[in-house]
C-alpha cells in the first residue's frame, strides 16, 4: 500500500540494539531465578535420595526406641523431634512477648528519637553469631536462670538452649511484626482516636487485629528459625552423640539439627554408607519439610495482609 502523503509515516518499531539489550537483561534475571530453583531441587533431590536409602535399609522398629543413638543403630525419631519442638516452644515463650512487645513499642509508642537508637540495638542483637549465644547460654543463662528455676538442672539443658534461641529469634519476630503494624494505615488509627478511643484501645483493638496476619507470619518465621537453629542447641542442649527420650526441659536433650551436626562433625567420622550417615539425610529431609511447610504457611498469612491494603 503506497501512501501519497508528503510526510513520512511514524516509525514505532523501536531501536534494534535496545531491544536486544532488553532481551539479554531479561534472560540474565531469568537465569538467576532458574539457578535458585535448580539449587532447591538439588537439595531436595540429594536429601530424598539418601533418605530413601536409609529408610529402605532399616529395621523400622529402630525408629521407635528409647533414644537417638545412631552409632548403635537406634534411630528414635520422636526423641529428636521432641527435642526440636521443646526448644522451639521455649524459644517462642521467650521471643513472643519480647518481640511483640518491642514491636508494639517501636511502632506505636516510641518517639522518633527513641526509635533511632532502639532499632540499631535490636539489629545488633540479630547480628550476634549463634556460637556466641551458645556460649552465653552456657556461661550465663544456665547458672543464673535455669539452675535457679530447677534444682535438678545441670549446665546443659534444653531450657538454657531454648532461652538463648529465643533471644536469637526475638529480633526477627520484632522486625517482621513491627513492619506489619507500621503497615496499618494511619487513617485507621485516626478514625479510632476520632471516635474517642484511648491509645491502648486503639493499639489492641485496631492496630493489632489489622496487623494480625503479619504478626502471625512473624511468629511462624520465628518458629521456623528456632527449629533450624543448630549451633546454640549443639552447644547448650548438651547431648553430644546421642540422648534418651526426654520431656523435661531442664534436662539435656537432642534436636534434629544438633543430631545432624553431631553426626557430621563427630570425632569418629561417619562418612560412608552406614545407616548413621544416611540418617543425617533423613533428619535433614524432615527438617526441610517442616520449615518448608511453616514458610508456606506464613506466606499465606502475609498474602492475606497484602490483600487488605
Amino acid at each position: 500500500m503506497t501512501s501519497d502523503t508528503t510526510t513520512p509515516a511514524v516509525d514505532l518499531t523501536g531501536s534494534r540494539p535496545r531491544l536486544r539489550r532488553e532481551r539479554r537483561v531479561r534472560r540474565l534475571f531469568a537465569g538467576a531465578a532458574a539457578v535458585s530453583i535448580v539449587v532447591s531441587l538439588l537439595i531436595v533431590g540429594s536429601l530424598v535420595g539418601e533418605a530413601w536409602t536409609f529408610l529402605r535399609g532399616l529395621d523400622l522398629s529402630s525408629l521407635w526406641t528409647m533414644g537417638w543413638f545412631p552409632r548403635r543403630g537406634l534411630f528414635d525419631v520422636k526423641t529428636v523431634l521432641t527435642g526440636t519442638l521443646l526448644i522451639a516452644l521455649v524459644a517462642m515463650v521467650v521471643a513472643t512477648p519480647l518481640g511483640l512487645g518491642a514491636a508494639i513499642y517501636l511502632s506505636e509508642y516510641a518517639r522518633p528519637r527513641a526509635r533511632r537508637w532502639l532499632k540499631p540495638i535490636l539489629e545488633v542483637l540479630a547480628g550476634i553469631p549463634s556460637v556466641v549465644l551458645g556460649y552465653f547460654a552456657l556461661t550465663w543463662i544456665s547458672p543464673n536462670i535455669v539452675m535457679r528455676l530447677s534444682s535438678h538442672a545441670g549446665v546443659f539443658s534444653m531450657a538454657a538452649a531454648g532461652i538463648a534461641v529465643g533471644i536469637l529469634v526475638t529480633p526477627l519476630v520484632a522486625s517482621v511484626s513491627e513492619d506489619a503494624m507500621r503497615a496499618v494505615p494511619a487513617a485507621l488509627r485516626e478514625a479510632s482516636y476520632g471516635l474517642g478511643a484511648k491509645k491502648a484501645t486503639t493499639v489492641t483493638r485496631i492496630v493489632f487485629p489489622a496487623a494480625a496476619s503479619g504478626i502471625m507470619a512473624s511468629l511462624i518465621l520465628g518458629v521456623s528459625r528456632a527449629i533450624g537453629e543448630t549451633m546454640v542447641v549443639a552447644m547448650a542442649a548438651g547431648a553430644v552423640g546421642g540422648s534418651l527420650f526426654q520431656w523435661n526441659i531442664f534436662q539435656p536433650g537432642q534436636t534434629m539439627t544438633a543430631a545432624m551436626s553431631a553426626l557430621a562433625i563427630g570425632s569418629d567420622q561417619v562418612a560412608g554408607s552406614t545407616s548413621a550417615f544416611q540418617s543425617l539425610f533423613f533428619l535433614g529431609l524432615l527438617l526441610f519439610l517442616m520449615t518448608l511447610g511453616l514458610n508456606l504457611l506464613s506466606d499465606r498469612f502475609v498474602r492475606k495482609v497484602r490483600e487488605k491494603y
Partner: protein
Amino acid sequence: MGEDQLTDSTTAAGPTIATGEARPAGRGVSVGSALRGTGRPAEPAQNTIFDVRGLRVFYGSFQAVADATMAIREHEITALIGPSGCGKTTVLRCFNRMNDLIDTARVEGTILYHGTDIYGEKVDPVEVRRRIGMVFQKPNPFPKSIYDNIAFGPRIAGYKGNMDDLVEESLTRAALWDEVSDKLKESAYALSGGQQQRLCIARAIATSPDVLLMDEPCSSLDPIATLRIEELMIELKRDYSIIIVTHNMQQAARVSDRTAFFTVDVKQTGMRTGRLVEFDATDAIFTNPREKQTEDYITGRFG
C-alpha cells in the same frame, strides 16, 4: 452591611464535659431574639455551639494559624474554605483536639463548647472526641464487619443498651440502612467508596455526638456519591451541628449556612500562616463578600 454578632445568644443548659455525662443526640434548644442588621432581613439568633477566641496553632516554631475568632452556630452547616496551606484543616482538627496527636502541635486561645473550654486543664481529649465526631477525607472504615465498625465507638465507651438497635439507627440516619441491612456481617471493604463514607458517617453518629466535623468528605468520591452525601448533610443538620472543610467552593455554596474564608499570609521569612479573613452567611459571601481577598478567591482569581 452589618455582621450578625451573637452577643446576645444564649447557650443551652447542659452538663459540662469534664463530668462526662451522656448527652442525647444533638437536641439543642434554640432560644433567641431576632437581630436586625442593616440591609439584611432579620434572622433569628441561634445558639452558639463553639465560641472560638484568639485561636492560634503552632507546629514547633511554625505558626500555622493566626488568631482566629468566630462563633459556630448549632444546627447549621459551617464551611471552612480557602487555598492550600491556609490552616482550615488545622482549625477543624482543633475542635476535637485531634491536633494533640501531633507531637509538635501547640494550640493557644480558647474554644468554648457549650460554655466549657475544650483546651482547659482538666479536660480529657478522649471525652471531647466522644461528643464531637469526625469524618475524614478518604473513607477509613476498620477492617471489620459493617456491624462491628458501627459498634466500635459505643463499645469502647461502655454502651450497655441494645447494640443492634443502635447500629440500625445509625445506619438509617446515614441513609445507608436499606443498602446494607442484609449484609451487616460482611466486611466494610466490600462497599463502594460512597457507601464507605456513609458508613464512616454512621460510625461517627453512633457515639451520639452533637457535632460532626468533616474534612473534605467528598473529595475522593464521584459526583453522584458526592451529591448523596451533600443531601445527607442537609438532613443531618436537624440533629447535629456540622463543620465542613472543603476546597470545592460550589459545594460550600450548595450546602453551608455560613462560610469562613481563610487565606495564607506568606512572611518574608517564607513562613506561611493561615488567617481568617471573613466569616458570614454563605449567600452573602457568594453574592457580595466584604473583603476583596474573599472576592478574589471565590471568583477564582487568587489561590
